[in-house]
Structure formats: C-alpha cells, structure tokens
C-alpha cells in the first residue's frame, strides 16, 4: 500500500476522493468511528477477505488506488446488513457501490458485470427468456414471452439510448477493446 505518498497528500485525498465517494452515495464516511459493527455483521466476510471496516477507513484516508484495484470490493453481496446496523448512519454498502462505480470507469469491473449491460442492450433483460422456459410458460397458460420488451421490442431503442447517454456502453466498448488486446 503506497501509504507514504497518501499521508503526505492526505488533505488532497480527503477533499477529492473521499468527497467523490460521498457524492456517489456513500455519505458520512468521515463520522465512522471504526467500531467494526460492519465487519462483525458481514456474512460474506466470514468466508473470505472482505473487511468492511478496513474499506471504510481506507476510503476516509483517501487510499483511492488501493481500493479501486482491490478484488474485495467485488465480494460484497449488498445485503445491507452493515448499513442497517451502523450506529453512525454511514452506508458502507453504498460506499462499496460508489467505489465500484469508480473502478468501472477505470475498466476494473469484473467481466460478468459488463455482460449484463450487453444483455439489457440487446433484449431489455439481464436474464432473457429461452426455449425451455417458453415451453413451461405455455404449459402454465402464460404467453410464450412475457409482456415485457420480449413481446414489445419497440421499447428497446429507448433503453439503448439511455445506456448510450450515460456512457455505460462506451465503457463496455473500451473494456472489450482492452480484453481483446490481452
């Protein structure tokens, strides 16, 4: 961990990075008093190296690079138990989501996340219908396709425009280009 340079640059880190995380939905990081309720309550950390309290401290210290490159920020199942129980009303789950948003912009998100964007772009669904399921639907007296974008594809262009306007599809394209180079 490049702590030395971060300490020297602590004020800048707090002003920029921590504020950015807070703006991204992870409010009140600075009032965290490191009680450890988040880590203690985390069902995921019991089976791997996810340590929510450590992430909160690193976020407050402005340790941006270490956080965005860490694999652990992607282990959180977003159960919101830590957020629910935090005595300081910090929202660790939303801090982790804000960190993931920043990591995504740096093309550091795991592949499966970005694949969801492609599925929705193409079909409107992250989990599209398939032939086996169509048979079950018909047997149940339902239409082969649900009354979603699957039955009304004329709604797809609107969805595609939204995905393009927010820049997510551009990130996906950059990510794919980076993967192709590997």
């Amino acid at each position: 961990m490049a702590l030395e340079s971060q300490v020297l640059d602590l004020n800048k880190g707090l002003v920029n990075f921590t504020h950015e995380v807070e703006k991204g939905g992870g409010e009140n990081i600075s009032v965290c008093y490191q009680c450890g309720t988040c880590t203690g309550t985390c069902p995921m950390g019991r089976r791997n190296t996810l340590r929510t309290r450590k992430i909160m401290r690193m976020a407050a210290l402005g340790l941006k690079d270490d956080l965005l490159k860490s694999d652990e920020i992607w282990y959180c199942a977003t159960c919101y138990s830590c957020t629910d129980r935090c005595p300081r009303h910090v929202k660790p789950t939303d801090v982790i989501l804000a960190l993931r948003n920043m990591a995504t912009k740096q093309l550091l998100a795991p592949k499966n996340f970005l694949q969801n964007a492609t599925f929705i772009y193409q079909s409107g669904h992250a989990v599209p219908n398939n032939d086996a399921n169509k048979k079950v639907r018909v047997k149940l007296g339902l239409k082969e396709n649900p009354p979603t974008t699957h039955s009304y594809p004329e709604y797809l262009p609107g969805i595609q425009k939204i995905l393009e306007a927010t820049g997510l599809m551009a990130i996906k394209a950059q990510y794919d280009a980076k993967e192709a180079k590997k």
Partner: protein
Amino acid sequence: MSTTHAKKSSLFLGCIAPNRYPGIEAATIKTAKNLGLELVDLKGASCCPAPGAFGSMDILTWEALAARNIVLSEQQGLNCTVVCNGCYKSLYDVNEKLKENPAEKAKVNEILKLADMQFQGSIEVRHVAEQLYNDVGIKKIRDSVVQPLNGIKVGIHYGCHLLKPGRERNFANAAAFGTEKPRFLDEMVEALGARSMDYKDKTMCCGAGGGVRGYKIDFALDMTNEKLRNMQAVGVDCVVDVCPFCHLQFDKGQAEIAEKFGDRYDIPVLHYGQLLGLAQGMSPDELGLEAHTIKVDTLLDKIV
C-alpha cells in the same frame, strides 16, 4: 392517487420470474386475484435493472432504467407491484429518491427525454407480499385457504432488499417489517396452516446478490449452504422466499452445492405465491412446481 387501498396495479415481472421461474408469475397473478388484487400487464418493461450489477457499474444508468419502468406504470395511472426483492430495491429506491430529490429527478429526466419519457413521481411501488399483508390482511388470506398445509415446517427466507436498510423503508405496520426480527411472512405462512420454524441466522442473505453469484459463485454458494444447513438442523420441509433471485439461488443452488461441495439437501423451494396457491387448492402443475430443480413430491405428500 389513493395508494394503500388501490386494488388494481401494474405487475412488474423483472427477469428471473418470467424467464426462469414462470410458475412464480402464474401463481402470483392467480392467488392475488383470489384475494381481490388485480395485476395487469406492464407492457414494455425491462430488467429493473439488477441493483447489484447496475448499481455497481453506474448509479445513474441504474436510476434512469429503473425510472423508465416506473414511468410505464405512471402512464397507466397505476401503482406498481413487484414480486422480487431485487426489483423492489431498484424501483422503490429510485422512485423515492427521485420524488425527494429534484436535482436528481431533473438529471434522470434529461436522459429519459431520449426515450420520450418524463418521471412524474405520481405512483407507489409495492412488493406483492407487503401488499397482501398490509392491504388484504391475514384474515382474508386465511379465509382463502381451502387446503390447509397440514403443519408442514417452513424455513422462511426474507431476503435482503425488501427490508434493508430499514432506515430507508416506510411500511405500514412497521413492527412486522423490522430488519432484526421481521414477522409479516411468518404470519402469512402460518395463516395457511403451516409452521414457520425458527433457525440460526434466519435473516441472513442467500449470497447471490451484488454480482457475487456471477463473479465468485463459490462464495455465493457457501452462504446458501450455511443457510440450508441451518434450516435442515430444524427439519424444515421447504424453503419459502419472496424473491425469484433468492429462489434460484436456493433451488438451482442446491444442485450446484451438491456438485461443488458434496452436500445434499433436497429441500423444495417455493415463492410465497406458490405456497399460497397450494393452500388455495391449485395443482402443482398450475404453479409450475414441476419445473423446479428440486422436486416437490415429498412436500406434496405431507400436505395431502
């Protein structure tokens, strides 16, 4: 718009219910109708979009796509009913956030313009289980039972995103929806003649959320395995959930757990709508139970 007593609402299906477990869709529509709730098609709806996947990549994309689904329901002039905790997180959270935060609403509406839409903030988003408890009520649910469930032992799985974080929820009868010891679903299960079993870490997550099922499936399944072990310890006959993603994680997950870890449970998994359907006298075929990975025959033998 009257929000708490509206008997007609749009049905937001999401992805996993219609495209993997259509029995949940069929059961929800039929059982709700028996209780006086009319659920109508929400034409052109998409993925909510998945809060773990899209909230992780880009919050604004998550909000805009969720708002698009909400606007479809606004255009019908109807409140929106969901059958999934993940969909609830997306649609409820974004609906409330945009109602309360004019700057965020303006930002999202700027994007929605591209789809010729505008978010108004004129409807409510509800989960069908919460609607059944708060609007229909336990008495009516009990009165609709024609085939009492014979005291079968149920392991209730509440899931996460319907209830948590509690500070961002605002349910009627709030005590029954508490995050540490919720009880609305226990009451709804017991109203059908089944027994809700207490078990260790009952409110724990199934493990699938946040993109973990896609990224680190062993971590996700290890959590599911722990919950199944805790349920098996008190002898449950089935798992009952109110979320198709948890449902998939427990049902398909049991086959994956057997393959990866060698632990076998064979505990049938039902969405509350399917359990309610059995109690209302519907056949397993009508509820899509035969399409589940884990066979339900042993459970059915105990009921009839």
